[in-house]
């Protein structure tokens, strides 16, 4: 009787764990699909298979200043998303067949005296004892119709000043073309919009763990040539 009881309990335990995992997994996965690049320096590889700027260029569509304002409890609780706030157009259509490129994003908080892991504080509203907002509180996701980003349509974040993440990764071998992950061959948003255009959303959910104030971060999007 006891044995049956234990077996039943054991089954129940397994069931509980499975249910728990089912619900928790989507939220506990690390956002990044790839490793951070620290520090990320926006310089090319030294190859000269692609024509230089401004023949090939990265173009920004949308405001270069994005503001997320939290002025009611609902916004603090639910967070705020700026959908399609930034659109990047890549134009790399001049060069040899070996021309490859990569696209990365780097975060900057202005450096010292700001803590490397926090936003740069512009103004404090009051004297809160709460710690300054972490850089990682800013989530962003990059996507396009071709799913070419290295980590497409996934909320990611950066954690330290100067840290970077690849949107289009530096991949060894021949350049990739077509409509697939990490396309980095010759091409342009003018002739292949879906693969050479990147839309970026931003999201912050402050909750009540950050001190009220005005803060700033800069995201630097870099287009560089690969080997």
């Amino acid at each position, binding site marked *: 009787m006891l044995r049956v009881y234990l077996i039943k309990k054991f089954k129940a335990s397994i069931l509980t764990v499975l249910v728990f995992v089912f619900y928790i997994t989507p939220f506990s996965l690390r956002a990044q699909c790839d490793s951070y690049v620290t520090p990320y320096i*926006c*310089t*090319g*590889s*030294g190859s*000269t298979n*692609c*024509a*230089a*700027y*401004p023949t*090939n260029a*990265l*173009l*920004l569509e*949308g*405001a*270069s*200043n*994005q*503001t*997320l*304002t*939290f*002025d*009611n*409890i609902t916004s*603090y*609780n639910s967070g705020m998303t700026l959908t399609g*706030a*930034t659109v*990047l157009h890549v134009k790399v259509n001049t060069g040899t067949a070996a*021309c490859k490129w990569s696209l990365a994003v780097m975060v900057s908080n202005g450096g010292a005296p700001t803590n490397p892991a926090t936003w740069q504080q*512009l103004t404090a*509203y*009051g*004297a*809160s*004892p*709460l710690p300054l*907002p972490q850089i990682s509180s*800013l989530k962003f996701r990059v996507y396009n119709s071709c799913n070419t980003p290295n980590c497409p349509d996934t909320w990611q974040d950066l954690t330290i000043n100067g840290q970077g993440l690849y949107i289009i990764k530096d991949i060894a071998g021949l350049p990739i073309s077509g409509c697939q992950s990490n396309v980095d061959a010759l091409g342009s948003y003018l002739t292949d919009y879906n693969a050479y255009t990147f839309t970026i959303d931003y999201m912050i959910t*402050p*909750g*009540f*763990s950050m*001190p*009220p104030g*005005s*803060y*700033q*971060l*800069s*995201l*630097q*999007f*870099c*287009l*560089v*040539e690969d080997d």
Partner: protein
Amino acid sequence: MKTKIYAAAALGLGLLMFGNTAKAQIQDEQNVTVTLDMQPVLQLFMTTSNQVNFTFNTIESYMGGEIQYGATILKVSSSVNWDLYAVGTSTGGIYWDNQIIYGALGANASTNIPLDVLELHQYPNNNTNGSFVTAGGSCTTGDYSLPFAPVATAAANAGQNNIFATSFGSLSPYTSPGINDKYIAGGFGTSTGAPGTQNIGGSYLTASSIVANSPGTSNYYYVIDYRILPGLPVVFPTDATDQCTADINAIGLGGNAGKTYYQPGVYTMDVKYVLLQDQ
């Protein structure tokens, strides 16, 4: 000869330019500045009737008093650290406003009923008034969490539930209570050390329960009961300050010197619930 020199110079310049172009590489960047503007938000939601009426029309009601259970529910959402207190006010700031008296004013009767005869009871208790210092008497907690004392012992426990009022010192209702006064949540000062004198930012919408098996109870959600105990004769035996000290305007004292009871009539006062930033 001069032509050859020009040609050589042009060739050299061309080679130099070509060489530069050949060594150049694609490199371009765009910057987006993200500004995060988190503004202070304090919201106090109050569920109550516009007027809480106490009608004393039987001997039992005079002697036993009347209690309005759960007459007010307070719900807090704040993005900053905060305190919450109640303060009794009136036109004069010391006594209830007398709207009308019933019958002729007796020679020993007074219409100056002190504001602090109103008693409050809160649930749950204030667990962040770390700066509270008792001024004596039965004021052992810096809040209104003690149950209303039974009538038989009400006078001995006068003050333990009495509302903080402006009657002593003629303070503005927006002058926050001191270290001996009652707060519904938080306390005097801005110290963040344990046990703390303020509640941290949060919301009743998301705060977890602090009382087992009582969903909805949190540091951001309070239920307020009211009691008035006139006594017979009407002297309000629980009349005292919220610090459990004697009310200088109690019957026979101060503005009520020479009086022995309060005149029947209609009296009104306001209770302000003040949510303030504390950081």
